């Protein structure tokens, strides 16, 4: 039972990191990014091929993979993060320059599906359908922990990484860059009028999201010790996005709660109904229906999510701030400042 809890918590912590990344492209930048799981996969694959020793294809295992540098854990994860950011830069350069809204959703989904096709069909790039596997437990060559001790250690590592990602992202969210991003999201015309380079801002935000995704993916692969095309699909990214919507778009704590609800609690709830678990064929289907139905109900009755994005506050002080007024540089339009961001600011995603 404890071991089970540790597993759920580890996966939950990794999912929380992933959802923080989705929140950057979806919540901060305001783009429907369906290629996100491709960056997770890129991070996972990159960490795997950096850490694994060189592939030796044999008649029994004909599939192989590139690189195989046998690097240690930490540099591999860092390089994997950078690779994810670079991939997001490339895709973002194509997707964000001229397109908006649904078009970005479609082109990013297509990108992800093309990458899936290439990785599954080519047997000598990343191991084809079988994928890459056979990684030794990272850092355990130095630690010499038993299986139980090691699972505790990895859970601690994941929670540490989650905290790190959370703090770094909170800091960026409050930085001038984060504020500019939100300004672009809320009213791109106004932001452009104040001299913001919309494309460059969006692209940097997008790459940041990709980097966080790849970081989470590298941790995930190091936990699973294997990775293959079945590990990532549009379903996964949709679940993450649902976590963001349910938790509260652009609110880091909210999206963590949302992701825990969707990815960890939902499967547990379905365990409570013996009717569902006793019938193994329809149980998962009913759980999915409940989950998707829950998302629809949530969107209908609480469109801002569980924890809404905090309203922007004028911190300049002074007597004039006692009088209600529109700030000279408005980072949020009035509708958003009152907290009903998701449901009302329909202009954000309009087709210009």
């Amino acid at each position: 039972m404890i071991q089970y809890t540790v597993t759920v918590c580890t996966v939950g912590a990794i999912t929380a990191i992933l959802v923080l990344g989705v929140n950057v492209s979806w919540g901060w930048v305001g783009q429907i990014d369906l290629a996100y799981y491709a960056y997770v996969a890129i991070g996972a694959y990159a960490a795997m091929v950096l850490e694994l020793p060189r592939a030796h294809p044999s008649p029994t295992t004909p599939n192989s993979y590139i690189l195989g540098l046998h690097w240690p854990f930490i540099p591999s994860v860092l390089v994997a993060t950078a690779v994810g950011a670079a991939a997001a830069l490339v895709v973002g350069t194509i997707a964000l320059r001229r397109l908006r809204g649904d078009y970005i959703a479609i082109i990013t989904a297509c990108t992800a599906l093309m990458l899936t096709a290439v990785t599954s069909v080519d047997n000598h790039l990343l191991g084809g359908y079988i994928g890459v596997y056979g990684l030794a437990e990272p850092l355990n060559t130095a630690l010499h922990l038993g299986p139980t001790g090691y699972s505790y250690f990895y859970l601690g590592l994941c929670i540490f990484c989650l905290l790190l990602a959370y703090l770094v992202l909170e800091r960026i969210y409050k930085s001038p860059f984060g504020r500019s991003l939100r300004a672009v999201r809320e009213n791109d015309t106004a932001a452009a009028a104040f001299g913001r380079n919309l494309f460059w801002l969006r692209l940097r935000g997008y790459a940041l999201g990709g980097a966080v995704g790849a970081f989470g993916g590298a941790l995930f692969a190091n936990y699973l010790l294997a990775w293959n095309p079945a590990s990532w699909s549009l379903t996964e990214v949709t679940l993450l996005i649902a976590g963001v919507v349910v938790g509260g778009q652009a609110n880091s704590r909210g999206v963590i709660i949302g992701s825990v609800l969707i990815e960890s609690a939902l499967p547990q709830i379905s365990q409570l109904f013996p009717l569902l678990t006793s019938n193994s064929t329809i149980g998962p289907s009913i759980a999915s229906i409940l989950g998707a139905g829950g998302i629809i109900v949530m969107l209908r009755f609480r469109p801002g999510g569980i924890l809404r994005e905090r309203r922007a506050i004028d911190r300049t002080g002074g007597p004039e701030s006692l009088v209600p007024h529109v700030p000279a540089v408005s980072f949020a339009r009035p509708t958003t400042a009152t907290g009903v961001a998701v449901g009302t600011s329909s202009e954000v995603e309009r087709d210009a």
Partner: protein
Amino acid sequence: MLGVGFGLVTASIVALSTVAMSLQFSVTRTINFAHGELMTVGAYAAYVVAKSTSDLPLQALAAMAAGAVLGWVLNVALFQPFVRRHATKLVIFVLSVAASFIIQNVLEIGFGGSYVDYQAGSTNAYNVGPFQWTEMDIVTMVVAVVVLVGLHLTIRRTKFGKAQRAVADDVLLARTTGVGAQRIIALTWILDGAIAGLAGMLLAAQVGSFTPTLGFGYLLVIFSAAIVGGIGQMYGAMLGALVIGLVMEVSAVYINPSYKESMAFLILVAVLLFRPQGIVTALSESNVQ
């Protein structure tokens, strides 16, 4: 040449589905990511009817009815309540994907997640010029042409079509001039569902066996065709479907067929990069910045 023949059949199916989606999009201005499920329910309805009768028109009728009902339900239960609240595109997106999951899983409960076999029409092969088609292939293409011509006449010549175009242009203006916009939108969804359901049945007949993810797997191909043609443009959608269908089937002759859909997506990326308004563009509007 064999590839071109298959391509024309694929293009017919894609064209039906794409035109239905384009019509729904141009009138309602919401992108329906559950569009694939309209096809899937059509395929399952035809599969159920095929158990008791091999009558092809009856199966087609069942497919269209199932699609039409689902289209109507999606509109009334899902899209209308949110559109009325001015939901953002992000919300509509999550909503329609959630709907698509629900429908897929309901079908999985009803029919199981494994492949079901669906045989429709005869598989007698004919040589027509340089092409080789089965009887069902020819039926598919004829049905597609008939439906598309019928749709063209409906939109251009009937009062309903005129009202549709008015709503597509400007809902408020249409409403002030006495067009029942809600009714037109509801009828458009029903029409969209019926045509997509028919396309689903034809697709199922082509592939022979399918699962509840039949339409979802085809969704992005349909989006590609719609965007390549210029989204919301009916005639562009037909052209886009032709391009996508031919590229998919002809490329499968030369390279690994697993890359079939990737080729369609490559065309899409190229079009979005160099001509984001699509091949065919209306003079007055552009949907992409």
